[in-house]
């Protein structure tokens, strides 16, 4: 008994990692929760990029000690992990976060503790660093790489209004917001509905479908009976796949508009022909197969977790890389300019305008953050998923054969309107 307890105590004592002279970075990943379908490739991109920077010497010669933790998309777990990372001597210099609910929950904490928080959530609510807009609380330490959910939806609605005219249809097109009853799908709801009204859409009552795969025939029938023409899908790939399949079975004629997490190569493969024609915003200027100069470095980064270099990387992977590299460049600036304290790292994000991390030209979209505006980009690249046949077989083969294609449709550059900030 005694021996057993002594032995286990020794094992535990040895197991506690004693890594002091490194820059601690926290990384919240959803690898098992409701959004893990897109959380896994994004987190892989972040982890690979940070490991790559470490291989190249780290942040100005100092390596990062990245702790990647799967928090299962559970807000309380994220808060508990945050407490762990910000306690004790090894307080993290920055955090790579994930979901909307946890990002919003942690926003007050990171503000108080002055910890830069680069999120996988693009909720407009955390894009106002001063709170001057009056529409959201001040979130001076929250950053994200990509157009906000609201801005992306605004851009898609602008495209939809043009699309309606281009198709020569008359009357008011009907718009419906669809998604789970969760902060993430709800985040752009009001902004989208307001924009749709301004653009002359008739706004239908929103339709709720869960943030997990399931049978959504009832929701599709509701949308069909209401005569919806354009529908926003607020969920991530997994549940959208189920919905698209149900809607195809029901025979709806709706132009679906996914959000940035709503569609990707994997979802298009899983949904098959049901995904054909879905439009969605892509946060990077290039997707797999592109010849943009930055793709060479992206391929190097990809080799961190896939030394053979054969793995197919979906759009979220590249976004993860960009999000991580913006952070490392801000850290590098801070290290040269007064140290890695939170306020300094935050300043690091403000140093350049229309800025792309070194080596990622043509992949990361030029972004600008300022002390009064954390909307990194107003440019929204809208793509369309094209599925032209059965999607059995490996994804790289399907992409190579052109069975699944991501076609650029339009790039909308939104005006940086102050009244749009924060919602």
């Amino acid at each position, binding site marked *: 008994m005694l021996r057993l307890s002594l032995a286990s105590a020794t094992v535990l004592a*040895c197991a506690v990692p004693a890594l002091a002279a490194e820059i601690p970075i926290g990384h919240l990943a959803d690898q098992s929760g409701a959004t893990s379908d897109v959380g896994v490739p994004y987190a892989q991109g972040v982890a690979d990029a940070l490991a790559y920077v470490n291989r190249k010497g780290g942040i100005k010669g100092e390596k990062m000690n990245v702790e990647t933790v799967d928090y299962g998309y*559970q*807000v*309380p777990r994220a808060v508990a992990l945050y407490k762990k990372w910000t306690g*004790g001597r090894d307080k993290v210099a920055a955090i790579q976060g994930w979901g909307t*609910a946890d990002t919003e929950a942690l926003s007050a904490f990171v503000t108080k503790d002055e910890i830069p928080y680069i999120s996988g959530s693009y909720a407009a609510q955390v894009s106002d660093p001063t709170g001057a807009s009056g529409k959201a609380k001040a979130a001076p330490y929250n950053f994200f790489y990509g157009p906000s959910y609201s801005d992306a939806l605004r851009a898609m609605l602008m495209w939809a209004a043009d699309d309606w005219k281009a198709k020569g249809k008359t009357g008011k097109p009907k718009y419906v917001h669809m998604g789970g*009853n969760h902060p993430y799908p*709800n985040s752009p709801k009001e902004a989208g509905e307001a924009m749709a009204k301004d653009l002359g859409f008739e706004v239908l009552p929103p339709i709720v479908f869960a943030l997990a795969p399931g049978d959504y025939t009832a929701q599709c029938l509701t949308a069909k009976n209401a005569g919806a023409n354009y529908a926003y899908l607020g969920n991530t790939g997994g549940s959208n796949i189920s919905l698209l399949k149900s809607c195809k079975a029901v025979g709806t004629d709706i132009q679906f508009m996914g959000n940035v997490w709503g569609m990707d190569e994997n979802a298009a493969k899983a949904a098959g022909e049901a995904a054909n024609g879905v439009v969605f915003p892509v946060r990077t200027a290039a997707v797999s197969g592109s010849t943009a100069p930055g793709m060479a470095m992206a391929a190097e980064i990809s080799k961190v977790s896939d030394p053979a270099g054969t793995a197919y990387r979906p759009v979220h992977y590249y976004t993860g890389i960009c999000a991580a590299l913006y952070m490392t460049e801000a850290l590098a600036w801070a290290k040269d300019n007064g140290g890695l304290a939170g306020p300094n790292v935050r300043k690091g994000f403000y140093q350049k305008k229309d800025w792309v991390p070194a080596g990622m030209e043509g992949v990361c979209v030029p972004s600008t953050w300022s002390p009064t505006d954390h909307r990194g980009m107003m440019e929204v690249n809208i793509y369309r998923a094209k599925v032209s046949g059965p999607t059995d077989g490996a994804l790289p083969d399907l992409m190579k054969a052109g069975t699944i294609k991501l076609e650029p449709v339009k790039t909308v550059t939104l005006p940086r309107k102050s009244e749009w900030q924060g919602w």
Partner: protein
Amino acid sequence: MATQSLIPAGDYRTTYAADTTIFPTAGSRYAVWAGLALLCCAPLVLDRYWLSLLIQIGYFAVAALGLNILVGFTGQISIGHAAFFGFGAFASAWLSNNYGIPVFFAIPLAGVMTTAVGLIFGLPAARLKGLYLAIATLAAQYILQDFFARANWFTGGVAGTHAEAFSIFGFAFDTDHRYFYVVLAYLVLTFVLATNLMRSRDGRALVAVRDHYLSAEMMGINLTRYRTLSFGLSAFFAGIGGALYAHYLQFVSVEGFGILLSIQFLGMIIIGGLGTIMGTLMGTAFMVLVPEAMGWITDAVRGSALDRALSLKDNLSFLREMAIGLVIVLFLMFEPDGLAHRWRQIKAYWKLYPFSH
């Protein structure tokens, strides 16, 4: 369950008061005082991470204590405890956010509100037993969870709600170092309360209901009353625990109170020992610390020779989850009476050393 008494030979009790004392020996009393004194010093030496674990053990233990009164002492079953825990959390946040009630008062008030809810959901307990009751409490879990997601006025809906930091006369207990004392105070208070309850007439009635309800009824114990009461009591402790949790995280979200947490509460009291106050704390500590310990071990293995040899990589995190399950299963197989029982045996071992009998 065989128990070995540590009372020295020749120590005869001549009054009921002496017989129902909390500490059978002076040594155990001193040990508790010394333990408390040590805990009071903890914030001076421990960092925020360790304190956060202790705080977690604290608020979960308060709630698990309620479940142990229900399951361990009264012999009822509940798989909806997390919902009451959540109700307490939301109630406390709601009271302090909307009515300006200081958190100091909001926590006990949340306990009272949760008691009321517990009594309502406890009503089926008057008529149902065993698995039937389990399913009735499962319904409570789902009804309350759905209520949390929809009642925007009360919980902030799916987006969750902010909870004020605990403060007294403007002094905010908003850091782990300070909040630790709040949780410790509540832990001591609730554990003393529960211990005394079990020594009282009502407490013995609850145990009688568990041991043989027919005999209990023949002795004049009102079964309906005590079964429902036990639900109310259990909800009270859950509510207090939930409120402590809310003001610690300063944010309450519906996601935290799923069925999984209910099962974890059951795990805590089963591992600690059904029907023991002390075991509740031990079981809670076990359930909170095992995942952390597994985390340390996987961190140590990550990137080591073992990791490379077996090319575990990302699978390590899954191994971790599986190992937690395995540890619990092994524990239940080899220590079904709980940690409290093992602790008694360790004490007896040293008491009787070097003779085993």
